[in-house]
């Protein structure tokens, strides 16, 4: 397809449209202007005549002109982000309408994928969160805006590294592999889940370090640019995204330019580290001394008093500045925003600097029949990391060094040099000092779209988007450190780069009409082509001449003199197979009398990832809504303001497996070697999730109390499983569609209330709770072991399994049966047993906002319940036994019945603990000055605290923990292994407009 051909066809169509005439009956003409609460014109608001087919939308100045039948008395005005409003026009020819942003009302507009809908017209389960409800505080990526806000959506921070990826689960796990994150769609453009940060897996090169955490794919979206986020949870909503919809879809809508005079919005904030919310506690110097004395361990007291974690903690201020300008007139409008932020991690030498510019504009051509939209995000990130990885053995993790460091050994000796190690534990401060790891990524995310109003009700839209990221990585570790094999004495340097390019072409037709005065049709159909490419390369070297002695160091990094290395290993290049998806989709909504709604959705996805026998997948769904409160018998109810019953059924897919998995592949690891690395499977296809959802939306007492309740059942079949192929076979993995079922069933309940609505004082509260349980069935094979337990002497131990009639990643451990009363040795059964569920059964979100005059106070709490955590940190890093090696241990290890003389390390149910927690995620105190002086408008000042405290009985660190302990490609869940500790942050900020 070429642009020329496209334009030719468009022109033809446009001419057809222009020569068309419409016949009118007796009409009247209404004009009006739509503004928001601040008096700013709302452009693009939909204006329709209730009970007729007539409709239009507002222009740049918020004005509209509409001819309606003489008997029409009500207009319905709606727009994304605003409450829909009915306007009485009887006897009027001109109306002024003020749209309210805000209330969690059923009238608000939600983004449904390729179009929008009023929430009250939805047949599926969609949660919508507006900017004003976002979490405040330090936000390094947009998903943090949503913690605790959406029922059934669990967001787990995988790492405290600023900007690291999170695990997001919507309605439980629907896959037994990794790749359970939802699909992100930004302004209609689906994102690749990867980033251009070059991956670095030193463990693969035989070094004691594991892979560093991945970046969050949403890092390049300025949180201040987001207008709203919609979460598609059930099949009726997500089926429009077909083979990528099974894990839910998160639609991010950015702020658009508004018409009107030049406007400048400014925000600035400064954040400070205020201690760790909860840390894995180890003995302090005195406790350690006493423990050594009590156990007759000599030579362990070096006389000092050190808190090693504090020694590698920094207290640097984070800063965040954002500016946005916008202006618009009759022919177009634009918005430019800039973000400059520097997020400091709690650990020394960790930070994330972000610079993001976003330019978006909208122009009208051909008598406003054509709207041209474009936006360009240009971002640069500079990420500093330290060596905290998920999978390192204890020999390669800075935090393990800090936990194990003998607290009586001073960090530095009298001459100011580091005490390089203590009992085989490298000095954590020296390792942090010697380790440098910087990733720089540039991202351009551009999209351009043209919308052509072919005739009233029918819009054609073409969208092209390109997302290009390129990154470099420079990592080095000086040779002067001691005790880190094989780096000590020779040094190590790695250079890496990566590029990620994805492109989207979308054609859509939106058609909206009143078939009769009481039946409204709203349909969308389209075609989409999506393509993505990723490449990365890395080179590493060892044996440098400099920085081999801590007393004579230079600031020149090995990465700046790479050629000095004694040994350079060959450059390794990986170019992933191109992924292409070609899709046809359609959705039809029918509204009968505002009482009965029907939605049918269909998507056909063709993907080159699938095997040649299964290139196309088909994803249908249907949904219905019955607005009971519009029935006569409930119309005059004084209790229900609204009441509606929803039901939906549909099929969605998951195609998150590596491209190329369907083909035999041969690859090379070096000049003299070539081998088959993948076993092809021509029949490979997407994983299929059939789900139904029944929901009830309610609002009572004049909308003072509102919410919904949903029941769902998701049944995933054709489970994609990565396993060793049937032997004899290459050491490759092979992907199969396993004939088994993964069932997720659950309930979600949300309630919101305006508890107090006084003239001066208001109190609004929202609460949501979701219950989910999952189970694998028809899985006719022995348990697959996953959840690697790390630590010395723990090789070959795993904590979890994928097993029939068990929840995903069920704990599968040898039972711990207490300590021998005489010897104090732990007694552990011989054979592993199913020992509990790592999946949270209940997740809760609770938020409150109090306003008194210009003051407001809001807080947001969330929690997870009904799951167990495997405390691998205690098991593998700080068990009692380590004391005998002169290493520090966790508190609480004495008096358990275990004796140091017989203490040992073995994985067992001993290290399973209840993970239930309730966390104060955010508390914000805001003062709204309003308009100050002649120029300053909407001045706000706030102070906000993030991760204030957590209520839990878990004895380790933050119970919101999910360190990736994947085994042979099978994911793990809820394993705690020396994660980056969760910092508490205090932010002070202002924002205002000019």
């Amino acid at each position, binding site marked *: *397809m070429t642009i020329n*051909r*496209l334009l030719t066809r468009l022109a*033809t*169509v446009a001419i*057809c449209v222009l020569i*068309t005439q419409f*016949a009118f009956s007796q009409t009247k003409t209404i004009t009006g202007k739509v503004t928001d609460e601040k008096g700013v014109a709302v452009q693009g608001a939909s204006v329709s005549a209730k009970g007729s087919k007539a409709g239009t939308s507002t222009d740049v100045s918020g004005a509209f002109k509409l001819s309606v039948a003489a008997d029409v008395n009500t207009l319905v005005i709606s727009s994304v982000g605003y409450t829909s409003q009915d306007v009485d026009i009887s006897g009027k020819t001109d109306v002024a309408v003020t749209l309210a942003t805000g209330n969690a009302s059923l009238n608000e507009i939600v983004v449904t994928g390729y179009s929008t809908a009023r929430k009250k017209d939805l047949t599926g389960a969609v949660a919508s969160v507006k900017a004003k409800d976002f979490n405040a505080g330090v936000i390094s990526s947009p998903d943090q805006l949503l913690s605790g806000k959406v029922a059934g959506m669990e967001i787990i921070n995988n790492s405290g590294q600023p900007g690291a990826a999170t695990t997001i689960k919507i309605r439980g796990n629907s896959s037994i592999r990794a790749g359970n994150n939802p699909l992100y769609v930004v302004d209609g453009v689906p994102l690749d889940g990867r980033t251009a940060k070059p991956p670095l897996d030193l463990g693969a090169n*035989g070094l004691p370090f594991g892979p560093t955490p991945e970046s969050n794919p949403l890092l390049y979206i300025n949180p201040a640019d987001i207008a709203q986020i919609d979460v598609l949870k059930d099949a009726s909503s997500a089926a429009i995204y077909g083979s990528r919809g099974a894990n839910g879809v998160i639609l991010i809508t950015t702020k658009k330019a508004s018409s009107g005079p030049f406007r400048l919005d400014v925000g600035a904030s400064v954040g400070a580290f205020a201690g760790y919310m909860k840390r894995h506690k180890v003995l302090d110097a005195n406790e350690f001394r006493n423990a050594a004395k009590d156990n007759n361990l000599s030579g362990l007291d070096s006389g000092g008093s050190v808190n090693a974690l504090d020694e590698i903690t920094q207290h640097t201020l984070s800063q965040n500045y954002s500016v946005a300008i916008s202006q618009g007139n009759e022919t177009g409008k634009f918005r430019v925003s800039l973000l400059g932020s520097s997020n400091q991690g709690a650990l020394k030498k960790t930070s994330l600097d972000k610079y993001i510019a976003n330019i978006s504009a909208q122009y009208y051509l051909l008598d406003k029949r054509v709207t041209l939209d474009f936006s360009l995000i240009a971002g640069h990130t500079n990420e500093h990391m330290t060596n905290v990885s998920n999978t390192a053995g204890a020999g390669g993790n800075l935090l393990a060094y800090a936990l194990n460091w003998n607290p009586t050994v001073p960090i530095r000796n009298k001459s100011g040099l580091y005490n390089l190690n203590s*009992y*085989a534990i490298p000095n954590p401060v020296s390792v942090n000092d010697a380790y440098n790891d910087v990733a720089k990524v540039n991202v351009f995310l551009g999209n351009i779209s043209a919308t052509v109003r*072919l005739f009233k009700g*029918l819009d054609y839209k073409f969208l092209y988007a390109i997302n290009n990221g390129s990154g470099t990585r420079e990592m080095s570790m000086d040779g002067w450190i001691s005790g880190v*094999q*094989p780096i000590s*004495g*020779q040094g190590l340097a790695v250079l890496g780069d990566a590029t990620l390019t994805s492109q989207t*072409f979308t*054609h859509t037709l939106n*058609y909206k009409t009143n078939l009769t005065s009481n039946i409204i049709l709203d349909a969308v*159909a389209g*075609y989409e*082509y999506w393509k993505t*490419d990723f*490449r990365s390369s890395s080179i590493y070297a060892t044996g440098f001449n400099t920085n081999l002695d801590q007393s004579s160091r230079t600031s020149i990094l090995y990465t700046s003199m790479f050629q000095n290395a004694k*040994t350079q290993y060959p450059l390794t*290049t990986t170019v992933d*197979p*191109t992924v292409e998806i070609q899709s046809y989709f359609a959705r039809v909504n029918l509204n009968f009398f505002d009482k009965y709604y029907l939605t049918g959705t269909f998507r056909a996805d*063709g993907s*080159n*990832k699938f095997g040649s026998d299964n290139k196309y997948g088909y994803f249908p769904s249907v949904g219905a809504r019955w607005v009971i409160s519009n029935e006569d018998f409930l119309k005059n109810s004084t209790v229900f303001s609204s009441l509606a019953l929803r039901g939906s059924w549909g099929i969605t897919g998951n195609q998150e497996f590596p491209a190329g998995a*369907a*083909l035999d592949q*041969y690859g090379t690891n070096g000049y003299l070697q*070539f*081998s*088959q690395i993948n*076993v*092809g499977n021509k029949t490979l296809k997407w994983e299929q999730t059939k789900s139904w959802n029944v929901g009830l939306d309610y609002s009572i007492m004049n909308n003072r109390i509102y919410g919904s309740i949903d029941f769902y059942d998701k049944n995933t079949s054709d489970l994609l499983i990565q396993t*060793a192929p049937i*032997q*004899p*076979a290459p*050491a490759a993995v*092979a992907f199969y569609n396993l004939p088994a079922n993964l069932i997720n069933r659950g309930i979600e309940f949300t309630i919101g209330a305006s508890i107090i609505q006084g003239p001066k004082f208001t109190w609004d509260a929202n609460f949501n709770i979701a219950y989910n349980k999952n189970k694998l069935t028809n899985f006719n094979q*022995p348990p697959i072991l996953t959840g690697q337990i790390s630590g*010395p*002497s*723990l*090789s*070959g131990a795993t904590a979890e399994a994928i097993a029939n009639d068990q929840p995903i990643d069920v704990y599968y451990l*040898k039972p711990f049966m207490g300590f021998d009363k005489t010897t104090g040795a732990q007694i552990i059964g*011989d*054979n592993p047993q199913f020992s509990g569920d790592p999946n949270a059964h209940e997740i809760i979100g609770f938020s409150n906002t109090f306003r008194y005059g210009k003051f407001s106070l809001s807080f947001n709490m969330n929690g997870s319940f009904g799951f167990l955590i495997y405390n691998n940190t205690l098991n593998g890093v700080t068990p009692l036994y*380590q004391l*005998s090696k002169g290493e520090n241990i966790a508190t609480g290890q004495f008096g358990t019945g275990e004796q140091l003389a017989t*203490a*040992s390390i073995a*994985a067992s149910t001993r290290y399973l603990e209840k993970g239930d927690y309730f966390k104060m995620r955010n508390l914000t105190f805001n003062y709204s000055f309003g308009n100050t002086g002649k120029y300053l408008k909407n001045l706000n000042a706030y102070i906000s605290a993030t991760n204030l405290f957590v209520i839990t009985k878990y004895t380790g660190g933050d119970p919101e923990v999910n360190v990736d302990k994947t085994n042979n490609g099978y994911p793990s869940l809820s394993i705690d292994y020396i994660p980056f500790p969760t910092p508490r942050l205090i932010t002070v900020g202002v924002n205002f407009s000019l």
Partner: protein
Amino acid sequence: MNNKNKIKITILSLSMIAITMGCTKLNQSLNSTLTRDQTITALGANGTQLLLQTAYDDLQQAYSDPGNVFSLEEVAADECIVPTRLGDWDDNGKWRALKFHTWTADGVDVIRNQFNTLNKLNFDATNVLSFAPTKQQAAEAKFLRAIALYQLLDLYGKFPIRNPGDNLLNAPPVLAGSDAIDLIIADLNAALPDLPAVPASKAQAGQDAAKFLLMRCYLNKGAFKNPTSPTFDDADMQQVITLGTALMGAGYSYTANFFDNFSPNNSDASESIFALPNTAGKIGNPQSNIQNRWWAPLHYNQYTPLNPQAGWNGFSTVAEFYNSFSLSGTTTQTPADTLLDKRIGGRYYAGATNQSGVRPGLMIGQQYNESGAKISDRKGNFLIFDPNIDQSLKETGSTLEDKGIRIVKYVPDYSQGTITYSAPGNWLIMFRYPDVVLMVAEAKMRAATPDDAGALTLVNNLRTARGAAPLASMPLVNTTNVYDPTTLLAERGRELYWECVRRTDLIRFGVYLISWAYKPTDDAHYILFPLPSDAVAANPNLKQNTGY
């Protein structure tokens, strides 16, 4: 709705489809890997050689690191033991399970992993055959596959086998017992004439290596057919003798110093028939990990620059094996060179002892560093390797680090200076000449007309070369005591300890299931390891071994 609109929508929709259809055929393009067809055309004849190299590299995976096939052949046998030292060497209980013969299906990761590692070699070698190999390449590939099949048959009692080019999604047939061993022998005999008579190096398969493997096949044929009570056909024994006699005339000779066979400069050792290469200074020996052969047994403090990470303080041997050398008393740091049997070690070895104090061989008693000073353990006790290991294999107490006689057979390569062990130059010896001699001796004794005297002569010649006194008489085995020093089994132990043959030997000599150090008499099903249950689930032709 008027008709014109409907028509327009229809036209528009159709034109939309016309615009967009056929944008892409959705063909998968591989960008840094090749499809099979591309591999054949792009690499040509050279590609076959690269695929063959992959099969050679697979051997390193299986054999170099003591945590792989070594663990199954040695830890599960009588000369190697890995005691749990409180928090160290628990490793999910696998070392105890291997020693006590209490493993279960999937309970010990090594058992599962080696099935896959060996089958990768099985596959990669077979795959060479589907890429138009030269005659010699095909012969080398068949030889490499024979190693994999032999080892699989030995460990698991059966192996799956594919024809070149088979669809890998289909379950392949499985061979066991005499079908299996016959296939290996036929393959080797077919390959032999096409292998080079004089290979480019010990790292290349040659006719001698094939003859050696054939000897093993014929010798163990009876055990593969009936592992619990092997019987030996005279024809097979005659084959062993014939092949062995040929090899004994092929120019191999005993090295003056036993440990030269295992030194960092052993690439041309005169006893080496087939070996896996490494290059000193090349950390790019990543698949090898041969340094773990000494890293695993050495104590944490046994190389000053790396202390306390100079060793992992694990793999040990038992006093019974030490005593089978029939020494009166223990070796000391300065054993008189008149001390019999150099294979027990304890002597100064240039390049090692002057670097770290390590004296290759069986290490017992006080250990010294490079300057002759006594080494201490991490608790401050003098490091005195103590033969007495707790019967539970769970060491506690203040001297737990010192328990166990250690064996360092591969001489540590300290040529990388004070930095690291990770780039050693030692080649891993797969097939060694004394094994030929011992196999011939055994075949002579097992022949229909036993030639015990001939066998004794061969063994005594070997003993003389090792500085050990000749034996007056030598039965095959003492069926109540595997350590009885006068037997051929014990002689094999003294010569070939920690060379991945011990479990096979014990089975062939019929004593694998009897009681020996730390292991009680056990059930017959432990004679074979269990198959990984996912492999059984994936292949209906692969039946789990009895008893698991």
